[in-house]
């Protein structure tokens, strides 16, 4: 295509979206005349203007219906598959609710950790998986032996596991020095022996120590309970159950561009509002696609935009976006009406009846569509 033609198409940048301009460029024949191209652009702009949403259209309501109706066909329960190697993930309606409510504790937090292309091999991914998995001492222990008379706690560790995790008892001693006050620590091949410094006749302190050291983290990242390396196409990917996005992105071998997690709140804290918005859209769309439903992505974009509009991630709950509404009646119509009305009365709140719900309540035309414009009279 001639350069001047391309420039002419680009001059529509402010009026048409980038995707449309690209499509015009692709489909126009190379030897087109100037007049024809002008006509094409005029017609494209006309068609685009006609397709736009009218002022006063209730887009939120249309979105609510468009998401709500297919929602009735979604799986209501998450199923638990026994013995399936892939991890169990919340899907269907429970997952959608989880995302739109921006719940802090999600049922199945997961990460997809990608390695950099240069590091991507079976050996590396296995090593990496062991490196990030949160390992507690309790997992390595074969046997605990409590001796009341000598006041000792003998911890026998599994040799094979120690080797697999590449740990020595010496390293462990360092970890436990601070954790075991009032005890002296001895090492014997694959055993840790804690000896009480005093000579009390009770077993209680020994027992408490045993419980305490069991949950001491000796390796990996906090919160990552399970790591599953899988092959996706040509490369290896680590799926984790439990998330720790911030720490995992710090690793040199991790591809910090693509590694994501499914906890929207965590994405918000680590990567910001815009990333959270994109994550909401991706996660909701994933569920919808998995259920074989078809919802236009623009409806989800609208909901995601509303959740992120204040710069803080807010769920569609009475504590989130609904609490931002200016009208008392609108808030009261959502949940806990008495609480809202009493508080509003105490504070002497004024309702200007500028939005939809409150006008429906008092039987007035709602400010939507033809109800939106007001009349201005010229006074002489």
């Amino acid at each position, binding site marked *: 295509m001639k350069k001047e033609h391309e420039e002419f198409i680009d001059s529509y940048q402010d009026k048409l*979206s*980038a*995707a*449309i*301009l*690209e499509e015009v460029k692709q489909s126009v024949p190379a030897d087109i005349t100037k007049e024809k191209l002008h006509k094409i652009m005029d017609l494209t702009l006309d068609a685009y203007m006609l397709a736009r949403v009218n002022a006063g259209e209730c887009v939120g309501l249309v979105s609510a219906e468009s998401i709500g109706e297919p929602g009735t066909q979604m799986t209501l329960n998450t199923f638990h598959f026994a013995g399936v190697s892939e991890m169990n993930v919340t899907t269907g309606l429970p997952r959608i609710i989880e995302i739109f409510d921006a719940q802090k504790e999600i049922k199945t937090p997961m990460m997809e950790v990608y390695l950099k292309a240069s590091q991507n091999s079976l050996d590396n991914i296995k090593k990496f998986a062991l490196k990030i998995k949160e390992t507690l001492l309790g997992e390595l222990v074969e046997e605990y032996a409590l001796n009341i008379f000598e006041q000792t706690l003998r911890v026998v560790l599994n040799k094979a596991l120690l080797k697999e995790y590449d740990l020595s008892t010496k390293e462990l001693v360092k970890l436990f020095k601070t954790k075991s006050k009032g005890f002296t620590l001895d090492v014997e091949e694959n055993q840790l022996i804690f000896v009480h410094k005093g000579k009390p006749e009770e077993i209680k302190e020994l027992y408490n120590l045993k419980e305490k050291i069991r949950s001491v983290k000796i390796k990996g990242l906090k919160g990552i309970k399970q790591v599953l390396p899988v092959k996706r196409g040509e490369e290896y990917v680590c799926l984790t159950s439990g998330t720790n996005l911030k720490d995992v*992105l*710090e*690793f*040199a071998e991790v591809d*910090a*561009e*693509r590694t*994501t997690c499914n906890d929207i709140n965590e*994405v918000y*804290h*680590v*990567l*910001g*509002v*815009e*990333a959270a918005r*994109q*994550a909401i859209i*991706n996660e909701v769309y994933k569920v919808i696609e998995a259920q074989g439903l078809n919802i236009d*992505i*623009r409806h989800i*974009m609208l909901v995601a*935009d509303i959740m*992120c*509009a*204040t*710069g*803080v991630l807010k769920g569609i709950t009475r504590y989130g976006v609904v609490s931002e509404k200016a009208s008392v009646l609108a808030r009261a119509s959502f949940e806990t009406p008495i609480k809202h009305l009493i508080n509003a009365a105490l504070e002497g709140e004024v309702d200007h009846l500028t939005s939809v719900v409150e006008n429906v309540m008092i039987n007035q035309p709602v400010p939507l569509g033809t109800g939106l414009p007001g009349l201005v009279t010229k006074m002489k």
Partner: protein
Amino acid sequence: MAFTTNHHQLVPKHTKLSEAEKAKLFEQYVVSIRDLPKILKTDPAVAKLSLKSGDIVKIERESKTAGVSFYYRGVIDG
């Protein structure tokens, strides 16, 4: 090694608007900064831009429907 959020695929490009661009934006869409969606000054994605409240951030989103779309957020303290 410290990572920067700017390279993550979920994070679109954030840029600070100059005063001239701000005036043009307000005129084009007939809005004031109060009408725009907000972004916190402390947001990880804009940490490097050294913003103050009252600034405007332009965000270049990659959109499935529109190719590239522009979004504007007013900076607030928080």
